[in-house]
């Protein structure tokens, strides 16, 4: 055909546009991701700590479960509010589709909420003298609930990153380590929360031990974070200027990892530790917001 070569060089305006549509997931989902990680990370860390070193960590863990429940309820509320039709939230439980991360996540969160509620209910009833405080049977029931809750809590944690990475959205679809990063980061957040609670409740021995663990987890988190951002790099470079990409990566790293690490290394004062934990939380929110924003930015571009 005449002029074929010339025609092939012409691009249509459709070809320069992102093919996929962006789901209406905005700031609410970044908060949901954070609260999901806060509740599951806290529960898992408290459960591991309580079962492994009950003498050291059980008192702090007991305080952690009610906090985990509050975070879980906040997360569930965010999940419901994010739906196009919040009154149909229960439709999620119509089917069990393990092949769909969102279905698996919904069932995991539901299953996780039951033992967590039981643990908190037992603790609350004991605190209100409705149940005997020293009952061995109740203690075993509580511990059983902790063990039973471990798997669904881990499922609730694991589905979140995979939900985003198994999509067709720019950036997310390339993020093979998103789930790994989220899992690691959530446990780090759980440790940070436990450390803050130890400091606030005056459990200095537990705080000293958790400080070391948190420093290790901060260092470990650099590995999946590095792998993740290597996968994001091409997309981010396409969307933002080099300086913006640099700032987007460096600021959360410095603010959410490096400075907290220095603060934890420098000393064990309460303000220093609480400052470090606050920075970790802020850094975690910033990274999650950045991740959620990628498809939106791509569409706008």
């Amino acid at each position, binding site marked *: *055909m*005449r*002029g*074929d070569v*010339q*025609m*092939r060089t012409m*691009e*249509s*305006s*459709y070809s320069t*546009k992102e*093919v*996929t*549509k*962006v*789901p*209406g*997931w905005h700031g609410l989902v970044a908060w949901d991701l954070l609260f999901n990680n806060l509740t599951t990370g806290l529960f898992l860390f408290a459960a*591991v700590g309580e079962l*492994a*070193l009950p003498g*050291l960590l059980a008192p702090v863990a007991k305080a952690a479960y009610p906090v985990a429940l509050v975070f879980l309820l906040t997360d569930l509320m965010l999940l419901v509010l994010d*739906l*196009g*039709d*919040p*009154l*149909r*939230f229960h*439709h*999620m439980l119509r089917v069990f*589709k393990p*092949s*769909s*991360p*969102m*279905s698996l996540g*919904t069932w995991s969160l539901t299953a996780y909420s039951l033992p967590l509620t039981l643990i908190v209910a037992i603790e609350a009833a004991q605190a209100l003298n409705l149940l005997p405080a020293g009952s061995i049977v109740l203690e075993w029931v509580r511990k059983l609930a902790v063990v039973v809750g471990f798997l669904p809590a*881990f499922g609730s*944690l*694991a589905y979140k*990153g995979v*939900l985003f990475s*198994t*999509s*067709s959205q720019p950036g*997310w*679809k390339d993020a093979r*380590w998103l789930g*790994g990063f*989220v*899992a*690691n980061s959530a*446990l780090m957040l759980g440790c940070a929360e436990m450390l803050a609670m130890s400091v606030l409740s005056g459990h200095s021995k537990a705080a000293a*031990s958790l400080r*070391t663990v948190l420093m290790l*987890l901060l260092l*470990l988190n650099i590995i*999946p974070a590095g792998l993740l951002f290597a996968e994001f790099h091409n997309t981010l470079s396409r969307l933002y200027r080099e300086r913006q990409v640099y700032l987007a990566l460096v600021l959360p790293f410095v603010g959410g990892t490096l400075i907290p690490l220095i603060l934890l290394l420098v000393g064990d004062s309460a303000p220093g530790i609480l400052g470090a934990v606050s920075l970790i939380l802020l850094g975690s929110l910033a990274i999650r917001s950045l991740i959620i924003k990628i498809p939106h930015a791509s569409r706008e571009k």
Partner: protein
Amino acid sequence: MVIRELELAGLPQASDPPIGPLSALLRRLTWPFRRGRAPQPHPATGFYTDTTVCIGCKACEVACKQWNQLAADGLNWSGNSYDNTAELSATSWRHVKFIEQFAANGRPTYPDHADSGAPSREVTLDQLLSGGGADRWLMMSDVCKHCVAAPCQHACPTGAIIYNEFANVYIQRDICNGCSYCIAACPFGVITRSDFDGHSHKCTLCYDRQRDGLVPACAKACPTASIQFGPVDELRDRARKRIEELHARGVPEAYLYGDEPGETYSELHSFYLLIDRPAIYGLPEAPFNPWLHLIGDYMRTIVSGLATVAAILAVLFLQGS
């Protein structure tokens, strides 16, 4: 006039017996869990869209809107030739794309003028009959691809998205809760959440018409048979014959998009005959089913989580000892 059939559906019906608020709540909670009897399966049906005969009349868009009572989107300036629909949406389940391929310098590429370099845009009848030169308009009526292994169906956590008895991907509008995961999963950017009702919407392949033995509205309205409807096997045969015919008539670039499964994606029950790269039509060059990563991503997550737990335990025990 904008028809809001969803508003009508929300109004109390004269045939509904009055029920108390508790019964209403109970019904609302339980009815999504009820299951009807599955209909008998039929041969898979779909669309074959021959873009070479599309004239951009938008009769398909109009017919779709009219039959499905979809609200107008407004006549917006998209900057894409005669395209004022812009994209598939919750209220536009058909979208005719217009691709103008003209010389970048504004000169026509008809051989006579191109040789002389004259900046004229006049076209003679002889030039048109001789093939029209390089300048051309491509038009394509876009729609849901009704993928055989649809990522949206895979993603849907409520079971709202199903394969119906015609093997079409169908959203049950009374079940969808607007989680938007299907939107994130679709590699073709088909599904959209409505701002009006908060649910996801897309082409139903005129399920209601098919059940009554009718052809979907768009295919019925298409005046050039660019949109053809029927059993998918028959459509494939027809499309392959058309490809052979086009090749024989000097259009070697004609090919079918989505008629066969690729390495990373299933075949489509709505496939296309194209004469340029898929990206030119706003289609992904090589669609990828995101679920191919599912197991690997879960494995990395589990390994990462367990390694972190192991590290925590190691430090705690070392400190404890």
